[in-house]
């Protein structure tokens, strides 16, 4: 029955004290996998991704009343999730004054572990190339490439123009292709 409800219905029920628990649970089940993947691709580590996902939903739950009805629920949730992931990465870099290369290297090692020894060579190189992109560009590339998110939604998500997003994605693809060709 839950899948028949629109996001607007879910939101209205999640704001109603009588149905809040049930509706919020449905909302979580609807978005948990998508948001997990978005966060996981950014932070790589599974446990960290689950912690950040939990934080995302806790923040959503705390701020349900403040959510503006003119925005899309999905965009709002994606924004919280992407902010969580990006701020986690920034904190990681600030902690112990780690150079960016170290954080990237750490993420690359985690990618290799996740892929396993039998991983396809190109896939491994692709992931390494993605990790070398600046964080925001990496986020844009992944949302477009893996989730096929429309540029209009991304524009709302990042508060950037569609043109700038298209350019960012195009540059990301060029950088990735250059890296994979060179390695």
């Amino acid at each position, binding site marked *: 029955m839950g899948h028949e409800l629109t996001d607007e219905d879910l939101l209205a029920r999640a704001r109603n004290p009588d149905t809040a628990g049930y509706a919020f649970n449905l909302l979580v089940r609807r978005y948990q996998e998508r948001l997990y*993947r978005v966060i996981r691709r950014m932070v790589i580590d599974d446990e960290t991704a689950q912690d950040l996902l*939990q934080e995302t939903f806790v923040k959503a739950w705390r701020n349900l009343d403040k959510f503006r009805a003119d925005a899309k629920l999905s965009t709002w949730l994606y924004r919280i999730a992407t902010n969580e992931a990006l701020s986690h990465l920034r904190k990681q870099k600030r902690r112990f004054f780690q150079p960016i290369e170290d954080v990237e290297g750490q993420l690359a090692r985690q990618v290799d572990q996740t892929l396993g020894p039998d991983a396809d060579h190109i896939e491994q190189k*692709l992931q390494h190339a993605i990790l070398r992109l600046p964080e925001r560009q990496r986020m844009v590339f992944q949302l477009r490439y893996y989730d096929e998110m429309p540029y209009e939604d991304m524009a709302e998500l990042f508060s950037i123009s569609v043109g700038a997003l298209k350019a960012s994605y195009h540059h990301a693809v060029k950088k990735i292709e250059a890296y994979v060709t060179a390695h």
Partner: protein
Amino acid sequence: MAPHDPKKPFRLEEHPELRRDFFALPEGFEDRFPFALQQRLAQEKARATRWSVRRAVWLLAPTVSVACLVVAAFVWLAPQQAAEPTLSYADLRLESIVEEAATDPEFSEYLMEALPPDAAQAALQTALTAIPDTALNTFLTENADEGTLAEYLDSQP
């Protein structure tokens, strides 16, 4: 997966198979995650309740403190206010003089002369209080008919 020829430049669009998300979902994620989240939200709700109680205490504390001060002040002042009808030492002295005046017509005259206008009555009262009992008694009993009380008061340092 289509092999990539290392001699050719790599083109992402030529490898649609790479588009798959290579991160597998953790086992049991679909059910375990909402359960863990529910527990976390329960903790958050408990924390929020504690915070609202704490905030209420913080907001009420000044009001309660002021109320306590008002009550304390009332409790402290009440006996003093109750004691007000009792005549002070100065009042008693003046009263005894007036009583004396009532029984002694001559002294009454002195007293009438000695009493200043209303505005100066407080000063007289203070002055009377300052006169040692013995000195005033001596004056009242022995020199009542020799000069006025005002003269006597003027002679006092």
